[in-house]
Each structure stands twice: as structure tokens, then as C-alpha cells.
């Protein structure tokens, strides 16, 4: 099998008892790119990652990762990938350096390779000083960074990151973004990144695949996806809260209403920002005064909304409250 | 300025006395309402989750079988003057289950602290000791259920009872006092430590006290260090009194009750002070 740094999936399906967590995913990740897999909790992201990293066999379909078939060449796939799963999954009793030793040793590296490579990676992720402390004393951000370093110890060509910044503070998140970006654009590592944060996909990914209820509903660069939607959003807050319905009625003349929850009204403008003057005149004509008026360029959330009928934020809340099945990667045993 | 004595006269009036009595009665009924609710919840949980109830049922039965069955030959040793080895072991197993029954409820208290439920109970109850009383009621009910089953099985498998009905009532009464004492010990520990992780702090002292009493043979057949320890262990007096009741030959029963009851009284204070610490911790 010709080696490459790419990923290709065809008709991937994973059925768990009565839940079809992944429902026919076709995707292609080019060598050296950062592919963002965006969707709310329960969408099928982690299940897809588990299949592509050979931890879970697909019910149907196939995929090649790094040029190797996930079903027939699982061991070869594992040799060329590094994985940082949703839970950092570290041993609280071992130190950072001991984790390096274990992981490197199991990958067949010599003690010298582990020592040199491990030290370099620990320094790169800012854990040199904490390397000899037990992981149980690490903060959440430190654990994620160690997880990333461990995923890289055997110099993989492809890197899978499953929600790597969930629960991190802003600073830690930015540091991780820098590191991931450097890996892809400087070192040529292909990165498959799952996230539920649209700003993460927007900032980091070269291309984004949006997954909803197990299906890929959109794919492309962030700019191209947003351009598909094309139209900006106008959001207004009435000066008198009792006038919100009149405000909605006026705005709906200029575009498609959008769901909002905070006493404001929003529409997607049919003819773009050129309509702004007409909007203002319309409001004035109806005697509706506004306290705030904002125009937003399309976001990935708008893309998600256009494709699925709900916003990513709303879908995330529903998943958190259990209205849609929360994704669980079940062990078959 | 009011006339001196007018207030006293007002307070002594029939209307004021009726009002005070009504307030006291309301308070008492609220107290028992809280205690009943806590007890009901604990018992309901135990019935719904057999895993919570089974250990307190299975272990006494198992120990009875293992000791009475496996060591029955010991009952024939010279100097072993008790009438029946099964009955000899049964009394220990009954009192052991009484003690550990109190501790099992301590697990519930610890688990409820961990989940935050105890805090919610304490916020809701005007008199927080009613919450502890509720757990205590559950401990007694669960213990009695276990004793009925264990006693039934012991009788069905051939244990001989030499004591009269009154003697057996005395034995059960002794077991109840032990159960209550152990419960207040567990409550005192759990209200101070407030987590299920502290379970060994309840179990270990109890285990040491139980295991250094005459379990396998009467005190006259003990040798070595355990003979000395058993002599000063208050649980020894309780076990021996219980065995004498089972044999229909009550001996030092009042002493045993006094030892158990005074232990229980001290432990009530221990648990009350633990409750105050839990309240202060919030």
C-alpha cells in the first residue's frame, strides 16, 4: 500500500444497538491539512475518530488512513497515527516523563530515542519543569499538553485530536492552537481535529466538515462554507421590550427570520448590507425605536443552521439536556 | 411601664398555656415527620437496590454457617460447657449483625454527604437531629428484618433454643441497644468526616472490638493475649449475657444492658456533637 499522509472514508457507518451514531460518512483529508470535524455533542464525531483510529470496527464502509486500510492493516495504521482522545486518559500515579517512557517503549523506541525525543517534546509543550511530577498534580491544561506530546513521541504522520481544548481556559486553548497549527504547516503532519467550538474550527481548520446526527451535512473551507450562506445577519434590540413583535414584523420584510432568545429580533438579509438604509427607514416609518442594531457576517453557526435547521449552540444545549442521545462510544463487550 | 407580674400572669393564663402546648405539639409532630421521611427514604432505597440490603443479610448467615458448621467440633472440647455450639455462635452472629447494621447505615449517611443530599435534608429540617433520628430508625428496622431471617434459618437448620420467650426478648433487647449504640458511633464518625471514603474509620474500631471478644470458645478456654483483652472488652460482657439468655440461664444481664446502654448514651453525645460540627461546616 502506497504510504501517504491522507485520510479517506467511504460510507462509514457505526450502529450501536438502537442508535446509528455514524450514518454513512464520506470524507477525504488531504496530506498536511488541518481538517476540522465540527458538530455538537452526540453528533458522531468521537465515534468517527474511534473508527478511523482502529479502536472500533465500522458496521459498514471502509477507510484508509495514511494509505493503510483500517480493517485489514490496523497495526500499520496505528504505527503512523498519533491520537489524543477526548479524555486525556493519563495515569495519575506516573510522572510526565514516565508516561513518555511507557508510550515510547511500547512504540519500539530505544531508551535513548525516548529520552531525547521525550525531553524535546516536553519542552515544546511547556512541561519541562513539571516532567518529574505525578500527573495527578497537573492542571487540565497541562494534562492536555502532555496528551499531545505523548501522541507525537513516535513521530506520526497523522494526528487525531478529539476535542482537544474542551474545558481549557482561553490561554491554554490559544497555546494549543499554535502548536497544532505549527505541526501541520511547519512539520507537514495531517491533523484530524474534532470540535464543538465553531471559533476553533474557524481559526484552525483548513477545511471543515460539519456533522449532524451521524451525517456529514457540509464540507469545505470555512470561507467557502460561509460564502454559501452569503447573506449577513441583522440583529436588533427594541428600546421598548413590548415592541419586539412589531420589530420582528418590520424586519421580516427584509429577510428570513432567525431564532433568538433574548428579547431581540434577527433576520438574514435577503439583499445584504445594501438594505440597511431601507431597514432603518422601515423601522422609523413604523415608529419602532431600537436600542441596538448589529450586522453580523455569516458564521459557521449560520452554516450549521442553514444545513440542519438549528444553531450549533442550540444543538449543544439539547445534547447536554439529553433531548438528543449523547454520543457514547460503547465497547462491544 | 407594665406592672411587675403582669407578664407572668399573661403567660400563666389558660390561653397562653394552650398556645405553648400547641406549639410544642406542632414541633414534636414536625420532628417525627422529618425522622419518618428520612427513615422511609433509606428503607425504600434499600428495598429497591438489593445490593444495599444483601450484604447485611448475607454476611450474618455466612458467618453463622462458617463458624457453627466449620468449628462445631470445638463444642466438644473439655471445658466447653455451653449447651449447643450452634446457639453459641448464633448469639455472637446476632450481636455482630446488630453492630454492623448500625455501621451500614453510616455508609448511607456518608454516601448522602458525598452526593449533597444530607445538606439538602439539613436545610429542609428545622431540627437537624430529626435527620439523624431518621437514619437511626432505618437502622433498627433493617436490623430487625435481618434478625428475623437469620433466626428463622438458624431454627430451620436445627439450632436449639434453651431460653424462654422472656429470655429471647431480653436477647433481642440487648441486640437493639448494641444496634443503636453502633449507629450513633457511625453517625458521629460520618457527621465529622462527611464522606463515604471514611468508611474504614467506622469499620475498623468496631471490627477490633468484636474480634477481641470470645468468638469461637468461652472465655475460660481462651489463652494468650486475647484472654487478657477479652477480660476488659465491654463487648465480652454483652456477648456472654446474650449467650446466657439463649441458654435460659440469665447471667449478669443487667450489667450487660448497663454497659451497652451507657455506651449508647455516650455515643449519642458523640453523634450530637458531630451533627453540630456538620452544621457549622455548612
Amino acid at each position, binding site marked *: 500500500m502506497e504510504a501517504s499522509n491522507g485520510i479517506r472514508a467511504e460510507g462509514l457507518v457505526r450502529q450501536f444497538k438502537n442508535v446509528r451514531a455514524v450514518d454513512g460518512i464520506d470524507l477525504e483529508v488531504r496530506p498536511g491539512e488541518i481538517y476540522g470535524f465540527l458538530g455538537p455533542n452526540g453528533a458522531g464525531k468521537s465515534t468517527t475518530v474511534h473508527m478511523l483510529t482502529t479502536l472500533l470496527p465500522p458496521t459498514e464502509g471502509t477507510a484508509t488512513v495514511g494509505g493503510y486500510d483500517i480493517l485489514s492493516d490496523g497495526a500499520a495504521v496505528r504505527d503512523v497515527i498519533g491520537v489524543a482522545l477526548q479524555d486525556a486518559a493519563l495515569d495519575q*500515579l506516573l510522572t510526565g516523563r514516565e508516561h513518555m*517512557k511507557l508510550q515510547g517503549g511500547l512504540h519500539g523506541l530505544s531508551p535513548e*530515542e525516548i529520552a531525547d525525543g521525550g525531553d524535546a*517534546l516536553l519542552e515544546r509543550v511547556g512541561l519541562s519543569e513539571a516532567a518529574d511530577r505525578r500527573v495527578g498534580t497537573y492542571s487540565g491544561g497541562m494534562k492536555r499538553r502532555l496528551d499531545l506530546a505523548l501522541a507525537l513521541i513516535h513521530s506520526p504522520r497523522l494526528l487525531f485530536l478529539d476535542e482537544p481544548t474542551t474545558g481549557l481556559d482561553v490561554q491554554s486553548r490559544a497555546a494549543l492552537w499554535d502548536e497544532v497549527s505549527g505541526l501541520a504547516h511547519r512539520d507537514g503532519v495531517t491533523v484530524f481535529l474534532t470540535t464543538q467550538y465553531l471559533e476553533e474550527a474557524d481559526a484552525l481548520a483548513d477545511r471543515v466538515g460539519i456533522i449532524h446526527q451521524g451525517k456529514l451535512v457540509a464540507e469545505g473551507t470555512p470561507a467557502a462554507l460561509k460564502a454559501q450562506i452569503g447573506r449577513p445577519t441583522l440583529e436588533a434590540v427594541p428600546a421598548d421590550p413590548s415592541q419586539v413583535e412589531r420589530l420582528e414584523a418590520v424586519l421580516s420584510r427584509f429577510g428570513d427570520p432567525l431564532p433568538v432568545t433574548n428579547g431581540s429580533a434577527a433576520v438574514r438579509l435577503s439583499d445584504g448590507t445594501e438594505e440597511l438604509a431601507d431597514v432603518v427607514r422601515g423601522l422609523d416609518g413604523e415608529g419602532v425605536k431600537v436600542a441596538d442594531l448589529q450586522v453580523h457576517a455569516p458564521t459557521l453557526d449560520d452554516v450549521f443552521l442553514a444545513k440542519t435547521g438549528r444553531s450549533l449552540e442550540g444543538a449543544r444545549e439539547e445534547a447536554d439536556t439529553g433531548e438528543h442521545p449523547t454520543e457514547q462510544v460503547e*465497547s462491544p463487550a | 411601664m407594665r406592672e411587675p407580674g403582669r407578664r407572668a400572669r399573661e403567660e400563666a393564663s389558660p390561653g397562653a398555656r394552650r398556645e405553648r402546648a400547641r406549639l410544642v405539639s406542632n414541633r414534636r409532630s414536625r420532628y417525627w415527620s422529618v425522622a419518618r421521611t428520612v427513615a422511609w427514604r433509606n428503607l425504600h432505597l434499600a428495598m429497591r437496590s438489593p445490593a444495599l440490603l444483601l450484604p447485611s443479610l448475607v454476611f450474618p448467615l455466612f458467618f453463622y454457617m462458617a463458624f457453627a*458448621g466449620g468449628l462445631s467440633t470445638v463444642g466438644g472440647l473439655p471445658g466447653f460447657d455451653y449447651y449447643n455450639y450452634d446457639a453459641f455462635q448464633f448469639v455472637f452472629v446476632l450481636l455482630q449483625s446488630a453492630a454492623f447494621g448500625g455501621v451500614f447505615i453510616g455508609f448511607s449517611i456518608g454516601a448522602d454527604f458525598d452526593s449533597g443530599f444530607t445538606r439538602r435534608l439539613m436545610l429542609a429540617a428545622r431540627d437537624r437531629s430529626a435527620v439523624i433520628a431518621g437514619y437511626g430508625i432505618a437502622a433498627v428496622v433493617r436490623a430487625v428484618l435481618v434478625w428475623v431471617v437469620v433466626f428463622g434459618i438458624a431454627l430451620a437448620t436445627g439450632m436449639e433454643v434453651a431460653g424462654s420467650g422472656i429470655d429471647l426478648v431480653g436477647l433481642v433487647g440487648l441486640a437493639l441497644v448494641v444496634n443503636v449504640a453502633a449507629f450513633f458511633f457511625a453517625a458521629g464518625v460520618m457527621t465529622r468526616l462527611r464522606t463515604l471514603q471514611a468508611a474504614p474509620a467506622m469499620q475498623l474500631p468496631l471490627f477490633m472490638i468484636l474480634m477481641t471478644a470470645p468468638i*469461637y470458645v468461652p472465655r475460660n478456654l481462651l489463652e494468650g493475649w*486475647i484472654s487478657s483483652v477479652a477480660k476488659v472488652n465491654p463487648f465480652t460482657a454483652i456477648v456472654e449475657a446474650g449467650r446466657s439468655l439463649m441458654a435460659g440461664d440469665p447471667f449478669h444481664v443487667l450489667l450487660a444492658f448497663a454497659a451497652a446502654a451507657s455506651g449508647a448514651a455516650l455515643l449519642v453525645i458523640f453523634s450530637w456533637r458531630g451533627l453540630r460540627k456538620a452544621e457549622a461546616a455548612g
Partner: protein
Amino acid sequence: MTAAAGTPALRTQARYLAWRSVIRTIRQPIVIVPPLVFPLFLLAINASGLSAATNIPDFPTSSYLAFALAFPFMQGSIFATNTAGTNIAEDIGNGFFNRLALTPMSGPSLLVGQLTGVLLIGTLQAAAFLAAGLAAGASLESGVLGALVLFALSLSIAAAFGAIGLFAGLRTGSSEAVQGLFPLMFILLFLSSASLPRDLISSDWFRTVATINPVSYLIEGLRSLIIMGWDAEALALGFGVAAAIFVVALWAATRALRDRLVRT
């Protein structure tokens, strides 16, 4: 970064996993101390509390301490079940198992590695129990060589029960389920010839249960080295039963591991 070197040899993998198992054992006093202290405490209680049992006609020794010394070795093995099982169940529960699964690690190397920690605790226990027994006045009828054989039998039993723990941990993936086994193993221990020789148990049903219970043969094998010297039959049965339990439990653990390690 250096290039990956391919799949390491089985013994290399086992070495790294064993190293991890040993470190984890050393760093958890709660795993080392109770399995040492609790059995010794019970030995002290039983040796003193049941010393009158040596007056039973045909009791094989005049020292109940010597008779009961085999008991803590068995108890220690039950703790081994718990430790091995909960360690692997925790790895499954917190995702560390997936981390290992993503390396070239093979199933057998994981089992070998985990059992190494069990054998370390088993060695510490055997040394402690033997030292305590000798210090309290018991003597080994089989002498110095017998002490070595005692160690070997004790470690065989620890490995056997450790394998049971591994099976339970891999099958259930739950520490609570593994700990639920502990009372059952305790019951097995008591329904045996732990407290009296089988031929001196007067209760027919108990004697029958003790005869069927494999734990009786393990205890009798250990005990024979302490109070009798060299009893070939008891030793053969002891080692034989330990080996049989180990083989069956390891086979079951391997099957459970195969189901758990479903990587393609």
C-alpha cells in the same frame, strides 16, 4: 522527533508494562498495607482465640499458630484478585486502556505486565507473613528449603487469583464489580479447611463443601510445609490446584481481553 521503530518484541512490551505495574504498586500504600496488616491481625486473633482447638483428639499440631499460618497467605491472594482486577478496570474506565490499545502493545504482554505487580505484592506478603509467624514462635517443619517451596506455592496462588481478578476486571470494566467479588472470595476462604483439618470437621455438609472447595487444597498444601514437613500428596494437590486455577483464569482473561481489545 525520531522515527518509529516498528513493533517491539513481546518481552520488551511486557517489561514496560511490568515496570508500570510495579511503580503503581509501590506508589499506592493502600494496596500494600491492608493486605499485609489485616491478615496478620486475623492470624493473631485466631491463633490466640482458637488455641484450645489443639486439644481436639488427632489435631495434627500442638501449635494453632502454626496451623493457622497458612491462612494469611490465602487471604493475601484474595487481595491480589482485588488489586489486579481494579487496576485494569480503572484503566478501562478512564480511557488509559485505549491509550495502550493505540500502541503496538499485544494482549499477552498486558496480562504479563499486570501480573508482575501482583507477584510483587505476593512476595512482600509471603516474606512478611513468614517472618511474623516465625517471630511469634511458629517453626517450619520443612526447613529452609521448605520456606522456598512455601514462597513458590504462595506466588503460584497469588498468580492464580490475580488472573481471576484480571478476568473480572476485563470482563466487567468496572472496579465496583471487581470489589463485589471480594466478599465471595472471602466466603470461599471460610468454607474450607482453613480453621480445622477436614477430617476433624464434624458437620457433614461443611466437610463436604470443604472437600469440594479448591481453596482447601491450596491451604493444605501451604500448611503441610509448616506443620508436617514434606507431604508429597498435599504439595502435589496444592500446586496442581493453583496451576489449574491459573490456567483457567488466564484463558478466561485472554478471551475477555480479546473482546475488550476490539481494535481492527
